């Protein structure tokens, strides 16, 4: 793929001490976070970035210390994010042929993305109806069929339960709703004939 690097964004960490300032900037290929707020830092949910061993180690330490990180990229205006308490941070090594040193890969996932916090809010990487339906069905354990994806998306939007998030190389959305609510919708949809169960 030509010019693949143009799709990349960046994750930047800056630490100012008394007389020195350290700035570390690594390349990010994916990011999901809340929309930028006027004041303060927004919540970040997912970050996938890569760089050298030292850069990734510094960013890893900053994230675990709950330091704010600036994230930006194409179609994403740079803004400050924090990943909150106990984010899951994974590091991997990518060996690139022709390069002397391996590239380190960092993935950060917030507790909310891992569905450990608020169960009534689900973060989905793409706004496609199929992915939304699958995510909601899997997380809540709902009796949903793949044929109902379009109906479910329209129902969510009508109820104002879909909220777009900021994303880099993705179109993330947050879905709000409880299991009992969604089950009620399914029951009403079947009763009204909006959806039907095909014979097995």
């Amino acid at each position: 793929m030509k010019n693949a690097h143009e799709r990349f964004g960046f994750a930047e960490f800056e630490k100012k001490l008394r007389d020195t300032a350290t700035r570390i900037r690594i390349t990010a290929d994916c990011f999901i976070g809340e929309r930028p707020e006027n004041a303060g830092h927004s919540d970040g949910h997912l970050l996938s970035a890569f760089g050298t061993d030292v850069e990734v180690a510094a960013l890893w330490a900053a994230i675990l210390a709950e330091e704010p990180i600036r994230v930006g990229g194409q179609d994403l205006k740079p803004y400050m994010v924090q990943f909150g308490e106990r984010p899951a941070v994974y590091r991997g090594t990518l060996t690139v042929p022709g390069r002397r040193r391996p590239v380190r890969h960092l993935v950060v996932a917030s507790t909310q993305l891992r569905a450990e916090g608020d169960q009534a809010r689900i973060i989905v990487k793409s706004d496609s109806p199929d992915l939304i339906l699958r995510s909601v069905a899997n997380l809540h354990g709902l009796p949903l069929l793949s044929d109902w994806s379009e109906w479910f998306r329209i129902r969510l939007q009508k109820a104002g339960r879909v909220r777009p998030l900021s994303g880099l190389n993705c179109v993330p959305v947050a879905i709000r709703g409880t299991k009992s609510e969604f089950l009620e919708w399914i029951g009403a949809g079947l009763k009204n004939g909006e959806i039907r169960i095909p014979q097995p």
Partner: protein
Amino acid sequence: MVLTCRHPPRSNSLSFNLLRLHKLGHSGMNRPPARRRPASFSQGAGAAVAVGRPAQSNDGAGLPMGSLILFERHRGPALPVQLLHGRRGDEMMLSMRSSHKECPCILNAKCVFRQKRGNGLLSTAGLINGRFGSGDRLHVAAWKTKKRVIRTEENEDEKTIIREREQFVHELALAFANGETALIE
């Protein structure tokens, strides 16, 4: 059937001791069951009988230096892995000791999953999820496990004892063709 034998405290290697059993003719791998049952050996379905001490929960997992206990069920070729395997149904114990990690037979342990209770196996396999029934009873089912924490607080002499008990429950959500929905726990 369980075989119990005592060995000299020279080695704690399972494979070595098995070899010694072969030499002594006590393991009886290629013999019919009637011939490989010495009078001094005890019998029992998976029961553990230790020589000189009562059976313990870590029998076989941490092999004592002085008295090695071997267990055999005679379902297949008698290997050290099978001697240890399936007695307590807890293979997690095997790799906890470094001495076991050194034994290649244990590392090659065959994983046998035995369902103990409930429909966990069925549900995790996704066999409960999907469309079932016909006519008015046609429905879609979705299964999920839920973790519950039961928290109790007791006040005793200006002290508060907090107990948290974790439970995993099955939850089955159903949506019928006529619009009825149900949530079964």
